[in-house]
């Protein structure tokens, strides 16, 4: 079943490559059809999933390289299913919002569909070698997306991004090989490796975890491995920023949770260090975001800050914190997508990302004003938005583990409120008005879809919490709660 999900977008990409169309619209329609089909299929899979059932469901495995012990194994648990749904939704948004694209449309849609397929692969792989293949497979479409379609500094950004993440994944690969070597059975299957990894002595576990953490930390990103992010986000075309910050960053956090399952002793030993890194990321990203006058750079840095919440949640290693981390992964995916969508559309119209070049859009473009304000407020984690549920969970869990230190999270939120309100004050409140064509119907649909998801998850988070409860409970169980 999951095979279909993973390879459906590839079929779309191939179809797009051979489609004899001169104009961009038919290409867009085909890409839309496949993105919609993927989302529909993912939703159908979600209805088939039983939260209270087995740990890994819809599992299918086929020997890939018998000599090496690697398998083509796919399966989902609650956490990966949530990520799959997020991927499908944001890919759809990325295609939907590019309706007007003329230049390089064929390349763009192909690459987005390939990227979607690779992301599905990362989240559904149940074999570390397969995971690694898909992980690397996301790099190629992204490299070309940034390099071909990005802003003025795109080549440097693309190279920077590629080198950083490749450097990270080399460490990851070495760590995986170590693990493969150290674990008995010589198999890459996640279940086997987890069993082997748990039996390893603490020092070996720590060494392997360090390698994995560098790989995942670059992607997530965690201070000080975040150097690629601001440049890549700023230079990437907006729909790609949506995917980059909405889904790609979550791959790092997702991998970290999987690593936690495999190497519990290492996680327990480094718990406090992870929290320190999380707090530094939170403040570092927040303060640098506050410093930016460039809207896209501001959102990019705020992503670092928000992913700090995820890392903090994972570092608590208890049910509440992990729940908060996963919910924050979803919530940040949605809010960052909303923000990049709005900022990207503004850039499309004005060709400026500098806040000083903008005036109030309230009178001329009320839909812009609404979605900007909504996105920024949701990013602060206002009650009623999905981010609030996540931050609350992390706050509660963090307090039980580290006591008053979670005040730092509060400080980061406060700084977040400061820069968000500055942007809101400039764009969405009364002032010198600027002339701007409002969002079109398609664009409003994109924004509305994301806003609705944020609101629904904020007001009624029960379905998501129920979906991930079983898997989160299983991970937390490894750490005694």
């Amino acid at each position: 079943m999951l095979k279909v999900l993973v390879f459906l977008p590839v079929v779309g990409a191939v179809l797009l490559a051979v489609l004899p169309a001169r104009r961009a619209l038919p290409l867009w329609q085909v890409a839309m059809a496949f993105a919609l089909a993927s989302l529909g299929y993912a939703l159908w899979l979600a209805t088939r999933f039983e939260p209270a059932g087995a740990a890994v469901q819809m599992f299918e495995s086929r020997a890939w390289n018998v000599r090496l012990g690697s398998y083509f194994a796919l399966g989902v648990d609650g956490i990966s299913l949530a990520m799959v749904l997020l991927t499908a939704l944001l890919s759809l948004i990325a295609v939907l919002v590019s309706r007007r694209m003329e230049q390089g449309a064929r390349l763009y849609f192909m690459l987005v569909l390939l990227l979607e397929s690779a992301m599905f692969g990362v989240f559904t792989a149940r074999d570390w070698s397969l995971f690694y293949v898909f992980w690397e497979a996301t790099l190629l479409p992204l490299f070309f997306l940034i390099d071909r379609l990005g802003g003025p500094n795109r080549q440097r950004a693309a190279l920077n991004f590629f080198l950083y993440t490749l450097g990270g994944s080399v460490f990851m690969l070495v760590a995986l090989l170590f693990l493969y070597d150290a674990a008995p059975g010589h198999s890459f299957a996640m279940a086997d490796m987890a069993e082997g990894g748990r039996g390893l002595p603490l020092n070996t576990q720590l060494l392997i975890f360090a390698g994995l953490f560098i790989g995942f930390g670059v992607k997530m990103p965690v201070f000080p491995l975040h150097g690629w992010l601001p440049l890549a986000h700023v230079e990437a075309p907006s729909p790609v920023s949506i995917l980059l910050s909405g889904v790609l960053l979550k791959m790092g956090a997702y991998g970290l949770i999987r690593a936690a399952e495999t190497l519990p002793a290492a996680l327990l030993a480094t718990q406090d260090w992870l929290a320190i890194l999380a707090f530094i990321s939170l403040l570092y990203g927040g303060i640098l975001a506050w410093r930016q006058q460039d809207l896209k750079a501001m959102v990019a840095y705020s992503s670092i800050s928000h992913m700090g919440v995820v890392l903090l949640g994972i570092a608590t290693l208890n049910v509440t914190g992990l729940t908060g981390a996963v919910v924050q992964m979803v919530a940040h995916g949605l809010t960052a997508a909303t923000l990049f969508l709005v900022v990207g559309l503004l850039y499309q119209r004005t060709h400026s990302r500098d806040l000083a070049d903008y005036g109030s859009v309230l009178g001329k473009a009320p839909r812009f004003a609404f979605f900007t304000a909504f996105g920024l407020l949701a990013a602060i984690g206002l009650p009623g938005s999905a981010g609030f549920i996540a931050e609350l969970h992390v706050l509660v869990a963090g307090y039980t583990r580290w006591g008053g230190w979670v005040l730092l999270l509060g400080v980061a939120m406060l700084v977040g409120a400061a820069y968000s309100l500055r942007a809101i004050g400039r764009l969405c409140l009364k002032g010198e008005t600027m002339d701007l064509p409002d969002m079109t119907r398609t664009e409003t649909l994109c924004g509305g879809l994301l806003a609705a998801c944020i609101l629904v998850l904020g007001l009624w988070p029960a379905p998501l919490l129920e979906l991930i409860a079983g898997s989160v409970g299983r991970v937390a169980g490894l750490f005694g709660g």
Partner: protein
Amino acid sequence: MSALLNHLPNWVWLVPALPLLVVVINGARVLLGLASGDAAEPLTARLSSLAAFGGLVLLLAIDGLALLHGAPGHRRLGHWFGTGNWEATFSFMLDPLSLTMGTLTALIGWLVIRFSANYLHREAGFHRFFIALSFFLAGIQLVLLAGNGLLAFVGWEMCGVSSFLLIGYAWHRPVATGNALFAFITNRGGDAGFLLGLGLAATWLGGFEWTALSQASKISVVNDRLLVIGFVIAALAKSAQLPFSAWISRALEGPTPSSAIFYGAVMIHAGVYLMLRLEPLLVQVPDVMFGLVVAGLLTAIYAWLCGLVQTDVKSALIFATLFQVSLMFVAIGLGWTTLALVHLCLHAAWRIWQFLLAPSWLAITRDRPPPPPAWLRHNQLLYTIALQRFWLDKLSHTLLVEPTESFSRDVRALEEHFIDHAIGQPGQGKAVHADRPLVVADGLPGRVLAAVSDVLQHIEYRLLLRGKGGMAEKLMHRAGAYLRTLEHLLEQPRYLMMAVMATFVVIL
């Protein structure tokens, strides 16, 4: 049928809920602009009176049940909120005390609403008046029927707010709004006592339920005294006993029906009710009871003397009321609670009639009011004291208002000169960096944030692979140079040969 009757006490929440519902409906009508002109008046009045009548009928039915089968007592209808060892509930107390007072109040409320419909015809604030009055009815019934202190406190506050709204009914007159504020603030002083009592009750008695008060004997006398004093302050403030008496004479600014129900008949007795409710606690602390007697007696003297020299009918009535209420406090202080309750009911019924009649008093009697008695006229000191109402207003002004005002001035100055600068003010920020005019910061936190962000930006540029000439780039360059040299050396035949030989050695 009998099963239905037995469930009747569980519907007691409707008594305060019905007027609240009417408040919501009438409020919505006013907000939507549906209530304007003569045509809208009957509906407002009828809805209010229907709600009051509904409450009365329900209470009468419960009374009948109580007479047949005994009073239902404490009823817990639902959980409100709570953590750990204490809990706030929706509970109601249906004992003879509550039922008596509740029924009487419902009757008075209904009659007053009926009376007001004509009295306020074509007044500008007709709907506002009925909204505030219904709100008051809901509040006072909550006070009387609540089964726990917290719910009673909610009602207590609702009474305070509606009293404030009705004293300030003629809001365009500065005197009215000033008096409304004065009454409200004095009452807030009492509320502080109520809250203190509630907090102590939660700590020492483990809950807010009135039933928990029967365990008062378990706690020490010192604790009990502190707990009771909180409630006594609240009761003295609400019933305008000394030293809180000054507000009541200024509270008559509102329309007569509201004065009648608030200060003539119902709200002024709320303090007495509270004392009656807390009787199990009171009897533990005779010294506080003695205090009640003293406060009551002093108030009685005050009200009697002032009442003798009043020249307008409402003021004369309010001092008469105050005198009777102070007698009730004396009775409670002496332990005669049943007498106090009977006195209360009779007094309320009599006084409401007098107050409602007050506007037509001149037309009915046509006589001049009797002059103060001769002994008072001849004793200049006493006469002046009575005329000046013991200078309570002035005293409270010099002792409370003026110090508070000057204190607030000082605090404001402190804030303007130091705190505002330290915290920072919106719109006052200075740009952190010349090329980013929108990134502004002010105050101490702002400056700290700006400084930290400077440092972080420095780190970001210097250490990460971004800026030109950064440390990482320099290191890379140096490493690259070494590698180039190495490569260059390796390209020379002698080293190449050496490398090949070395490889062979290793392999062999």
